[in-house]
């Protein structure tokens, strides 16, 4: 009885402060996006056109004249990666959603583990397995071939982008309107016809979104071509070399701006496609599985099964070799078990491990709330420049991480905004680098909170803050956990953006991983990668348990 009274007075207080807090939140949200996304990107741009204070497009002329081959290479390999990867992803998603029981659980498990993908080590595992002296290619099959070329890059990128795409596509598949499948079946359509004429056309926008996002990711990926490209250069790997070798931030910045052109085109197309694919899933509950017998779907079904099996086997081999390498020593071609690397890691890097987890947790909490608030304010409220900010927040997705990091140094190296050398700049960079994905996740979740609910809360006298606290945030509960785990996983594995921001005394695990890869200490790199995967999976597991417990209490 007292509760209502208390609640009412609390609400009154909130209403009183609410309007002010509301404005403050908007100001902080948009202000920090300007500061941590727009400003660093503008600094990259100005770096590319200002030479000693004068406007000059020399860097662009240089890049256009000298690096066109790399640009074509980038486009060529990214287009192929986008298609191969999407093909694989669709196959995996179909197989996963149409299977049941433990098979489905196993596949889901592999996808969840491989979603955590520490940078670089996958490429190193690829060399170990399929190199000129690879365990599979040479030791097992007795062939020696050269994997250091563009096909290696395309294949490697294709399979490493599958887990996320497959999860996205199976989300769409399970939420698909099953009525049309039943209708088709009732009308006498065969399984093959249902797949080709009903299922695939229905998820077409989702497939196109996958193509475009993969294309953008492949364009920005510098790790894979750096390690297995051989003589094959892409613009992203050239940017990396400009920064790490020629120490020429100006040229790197110009390359980056050029690379933005195809990225932006793909991105605009993606926006159009996404609206269509959102309509597919909007407001429908998941069925869980798709009632489809793939092995009866003719050649296409068989192909899907074969390719997804190939994918799962390759992933198991790849991660198996990463896990194993951290515990093995090689002496004259003979491998033996060893805990030396584990000891070394514990001795020198315990502080680094703790620091990495703490940073990632902070970024996950702040980043998730930031994304939820941003999704709400741009999605539901008339914030000035809504579309502009919505676009701005996607920018970090399109820029290779190394340049985003350099942008941060350029932007924050002088008082009154001197942040270089602090922990804040590293965490801010991680947070805003991941914002494109987390805001998308939150926007999608927001569509599950009916607008009418929000309006009725307002009509019943709820202040703006009360609506946010009692309607919006609880409604996005599931999204909170998804965002949190995504943020955490990315913070533990994003290397490019923070390589240049890390300072002595503030080392992170992923930096350590990069360093070991650079120095060629593969077993140590594998061990760090394994540790990162274990940490991320543990945190994800805890979050999952927590969300279930909370969920139960919520219902009762």
């Amino acid at each position, binding site marked *: 009885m007292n509760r209502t009274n208390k609640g009412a007075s609390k609400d009154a207080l909130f209403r009183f402060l609410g309007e002010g807090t509301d404005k403050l939140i908007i100001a902080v949200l948009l202000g920090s996006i300007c500061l941590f996304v727009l400003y660093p990107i503008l600094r990259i741009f100005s770096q590319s056109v200002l030479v000693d204070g004068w406007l000059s497009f020399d860097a662009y002329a240089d890049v256009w004249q000298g690096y066109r081959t790399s640009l074509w*290479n980038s486009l060529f390999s990214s287009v192929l990666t986008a298609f191969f990867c999407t093909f694989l992803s669709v196959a995996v998603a179909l197989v996963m959603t149409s299977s049941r029981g433990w098979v489905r659980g196993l596949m889901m498990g592999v996808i969840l583990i491989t979603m955590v993908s520490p940078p670089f080590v996958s490429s190193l595992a690829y060399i170990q397995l399929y190199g000129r002296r690879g365990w599979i290619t040479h030791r097992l099959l007795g062939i020696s071939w050269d994997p250091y070329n563009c096909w290696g890059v395309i294949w490697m990128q294709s399979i490493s982008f599958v887990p996320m795409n497959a999860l996205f596509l199976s989300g769409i598949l399970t939420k698909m309107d099953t009525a049309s499948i039943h209708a088709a079946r009732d009308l006498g359509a065969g399984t093959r016809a249902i797949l080709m004429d009903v299922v695939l056309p229905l998820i077409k926008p989702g497939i196109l979104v996958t193509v475009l996002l993969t294309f953008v990711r492949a364009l920005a990926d510098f790790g894979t071509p750096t390690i297995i490209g051989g003589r094959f250069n892409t613009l992203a790997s050239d940017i990396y070399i400009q920064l790490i070798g020629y120490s020429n931030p100006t040229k790197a910045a110009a390359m980056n701006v050029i690379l933005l052109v195809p990225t932006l085109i793909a991105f605009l197309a993606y926006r159009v496609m996404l609206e269509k694919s959102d309509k597919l899933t909007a407001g429908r509950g998941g069925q869980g599985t798709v009632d489809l017998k793939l092995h009866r779907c003719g050649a296409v079904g068989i192909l899907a099964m074969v390719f997804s099996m190939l994918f799962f086997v390759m992933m198991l081999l790849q991660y198996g070799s990463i896990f194993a390498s951290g515990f093995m020593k090689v002496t004259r071609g003979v491998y033996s078990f060893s805990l030396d690397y584990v000891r070394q890691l514990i001795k020198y890097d315990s502080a680094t491990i703790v620091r990495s987890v703490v940073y990632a947790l902070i970024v996950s909490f702040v980043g998730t709330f930031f994304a939820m608030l941003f999704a709400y304010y741009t999605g539901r409220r008339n914030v000035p420049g809504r579309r502009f900010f919505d676009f701005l927040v996607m920018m970090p997705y399109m820029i290779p991480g190394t340049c985003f990091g350099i942008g941060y140094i350029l932007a924050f190296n002088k008082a009154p905004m001197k942040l270089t050398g602090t922990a804040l700049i590293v965490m801010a960079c991680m947070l805003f680098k991941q914002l494109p994905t987390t805001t998308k996740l939150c926007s999608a979740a927001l569509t599950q909170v009916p607008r009418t609910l929000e309006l009725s809360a307002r009509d019943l006298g709820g202040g703006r803050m009360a609506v946010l606290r009692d309607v919006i945030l609880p409604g996005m509960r599931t999204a909170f956990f998804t965002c949190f785990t995504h943020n955490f996983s990315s913070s533990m594995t994003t290397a490019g953006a923070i390589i240049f921001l890390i300072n002595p*005394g503030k080392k992170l695990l992923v930096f350590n991983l990069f360093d070991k890869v*650079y120095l060629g200490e593969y077993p140590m790199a594998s061990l760090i990668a394994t540790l990162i995967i274990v940490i991320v999976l543990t945190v994800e597991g805890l979050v999952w348990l927590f969300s279930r417990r909370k969920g139960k209490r919520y219902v009762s």
Partner: protein
Amino acid sequence: MKKIISALLVLVMAMSLFAGCGSTEPEVTVAPTEAPVVTEAPAAETEAPTEAAPQLSGTMKVVATSEAYVDLFNKFTEETGVAVELLSMSSGEVLSKLRAEGGTPSADLWFGGGVDAFMSAKEDGLLEQVNFEASAELDPTYKDADNYWFSKGLTIVGFLVNNTLAAELELDIPTSWADLLDEQYAGEIIMSNPAISGTNYGVVNCLLQVMGEEEGWKYFEALNENIAYYGRRGSDPKNKVTADEYAIGITYLDGTIDALLEQYDVTIVYPADGIPYIPEGVAVFKGAENVDAAKYFVEWLYSGDENLQMLSQIDQKTAVKVIKPTMEGVELAYSTDILVDVDVALFGSQREDILAKFEVLMGDKAATE
């Protein structure tokens, strides 16, 4: 228009907000408290350079080529009370970062890496002059004439050959740079991109100096035909050879490479027609937060022989003896006669031109001038 103005307003608001946050960050406030030390340190230096350390405080931040130097820096901490934080970074990365930071470096000391990057940094005015008594004892060939950088050793370069692969592919073990041009090695030699690897830049610069511009470039064009690819990591040649991926790697040679003999079936080759080398730099960053500690470290390192001995052990190299010929306790493992006769000063001044030419030579890049 209205929207833009409101966005700008928001930006200004947020900036002041974050500036407020920034000033409470401990890193920023450390500098003023250390300021008084500035006047004391030089006095202590001139009076008794090798005796008790001057009054130093705080933390010295170091970027080094490896974390293996931790023992050396621990010794420094024990003797001076200055805590050291170490981060491993390649010299190209350091230079990029320095340039982007625009005079507000986030580290104090730069330890190791090809001296060419140090020369470029000096050109850009990013380094601090360090004058100390013992610097007179250092061989002037391997230090900056104005004391902006010093060398901590020499990286010497040769070949690492995989015996199993060489036998399988019926390759002779090459013994000289000239040998590498033989067509039997086509696609079996690996070196790193000289822009990334100071070691391999040393090879290019030294051989160009020894052979002369014209002959030198002809040599590298011919060598290019045999190179499988140019690694994007300095460690690639060594790793690819030990992993049985390629037969011949052009790599640095030191105690760690000697140790590979026990683990792998490989041969180390000191090329008969001259061994290229590149000094490894040490310098203090201009405008760093704890310049005094870093300056004192440089003096400390070169003044006491036991420090250099320790460095020599960690590096598994004996070239410190070349850097400071008067030092005791380290004997040079090789005669300096086997090193190519080059002008070290050219490493820096020719860097940009050589790398630009080499970038085109490697293929797929068009010349821009």
